[in-house]
């Protein structure tokens, strides 16, 4: 940005804590249309000169914001946002009071790089904050984007040719004792022994490997690949 000349970009940060309280911080004191609004903090009442419109007023508390990265591989990185921890009356710091009064862990945020000339955002990311520490000078927040494939739930099970249900569990469905003489064989978690119980409840993935001569076409019933990670 600096190589393009002109003034440094204006960085805007909207934060909405989990109880709906909103905060607007920037690296310059400015009035801009916000992304998020919410309940005004009680801290506002203690200001000697409160802004005319709290929702559009950004206090110059944002010291730095770094680490916002985009990746084609959808990798997600945690950015770092530094908020000043110096302002306040002589007894208590503003930010320390705000952190004590409200939960910022998981707070929704919108970060923007604002083009003053165009009056529009050149970059915008939404996410959730995590409190990573704090010093006498500043309080760093981790900023995790909302678009984060790392947060997606994947398949919770192993890929295996053997069944991973516990015998008699609700997933298995068997109601008799394991080794009941009325059935051909006791369960040893293979598809072959499951055939004699509840074959359609088999919790494994059968490889379509043919071992000639195959007793059952396309399905291996003699050779078993035991549970493994893939």
């Amino acid at each position, binding site marked *: 940005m600096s190589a393009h000349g002109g003034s440094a970009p204006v960085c805007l940060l909207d934060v909405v804590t989990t109880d709906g309280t909103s905060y607007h911080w920037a690296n310059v004191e400015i009035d801009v249309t916000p992304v998020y609004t919410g309940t005004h903090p009680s801290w506002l009442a203690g200001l000697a000169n409160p802004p005319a419109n709290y929702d559009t007023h950004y206090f110059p508390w944002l010291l730095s914001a770094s680490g916002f990265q985009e990746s084609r591989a959808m990798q997600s990185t945690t950015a770092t946002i530094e908020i000043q921890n110096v302002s306040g*009356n002589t007894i208590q710091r503003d930010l320390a009071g705000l952190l004590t009064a409200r939960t910022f862990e998981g707070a929704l945020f919108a970060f923007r790089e604002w083009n003053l000339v165009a009056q529009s955002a050149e970059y915008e990311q939404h996410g959730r904050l995590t409190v990573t520490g704090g010093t006498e000078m500043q309080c760093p927040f981790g900023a995790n984007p909302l678009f984060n494939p790392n947060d997606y739930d994947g398949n919770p099970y192993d890929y295996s040719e053997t069944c991973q249900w516990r015998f008699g569990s609700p997933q298995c469905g068997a109601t008799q004792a394991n080794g009941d003489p009325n059935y051909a064989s006791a369960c040893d978690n293979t598809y072959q022994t499951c055939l004699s119980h509840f074959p359609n409840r088999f919790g494994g993935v059968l490889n379509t490997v043919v071992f000639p001569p195959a007793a059952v076409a396309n399905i291996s019933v003699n050779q078993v690949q035991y549970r493994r990670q893939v």
Partner: protein
Amino acid sequence: MSQFDILNPTPTHPLNPDYGFQKKRPLTHLNAKASQGAPYFRDITDTGHQFSLNWNEKLATHARKLKWYYEQYRDGFFTLIDHEGGGRQYVGRFSQPVEPVPTSHNHWAIQQVLFDEVPLAPMQVYPGDWQDDAIWRPLLDDFGNRMVAAVSGTWTLTADASAKSKYHFANAGTVTTDMAAYCYVGYGFQFWAPTGPAGGQASVLLQTMNMNGSTPAIVGTVDFYSPAASPSSMLLQVRNVPLGSHIVSLQPLNSKDDASTGNAVWWDALQVMR
């Protein structure tokens, strides 16, 4: 001993440092500033003044005495008088060993000895040049941020053109647990406030922060009553306070002069000794 042991009682005393020594006060505050816009400040330490002293052409007895002052008070403090600066006293110690260097027969030079003022040390004479050494601690800083804290109760910031702060901090004065407070780094202070026909009475408390903690102690009572409204004036002076980080509190007494029509209490500004 200690504060009663004066290194240089008179300007002509042989241990009075050579003229032209350096005196400075290290930064005691934090400064946070976004890339654009006004900065924020906060006092965080109570580090005192530092002197860099020189003695030239001193006899061996004087050099030995300066070494003794280092050894004796390395872990304590003694008094240094700044005769060139108006005779103000400082309590502290030499923070580095005194190392005399011979310059001629029986003459020694002792150069760049650092004298560090120590906080929380009692003084024989506390600083009292309110005209030259004290600074104002108004209700708002120059950027309009409120510096005084409403610890409990309802306190109202009201514009007051005649006040040092251009505002005064007002309380109805009927609840004795209400409190406003201000933290500063320095020595003693003066409490300034307006008075008027509806003024009540309040206690002024002082709390000094130290390693062992401390509780607020009443250092005076102020009466805000006057027959006619009067602009801000000094209502209380507390001079004998060691260097440190102090909290001044104002607590209404829910009492008033018989002639007063109300219990209101006000706060304009502090003048604190630095």
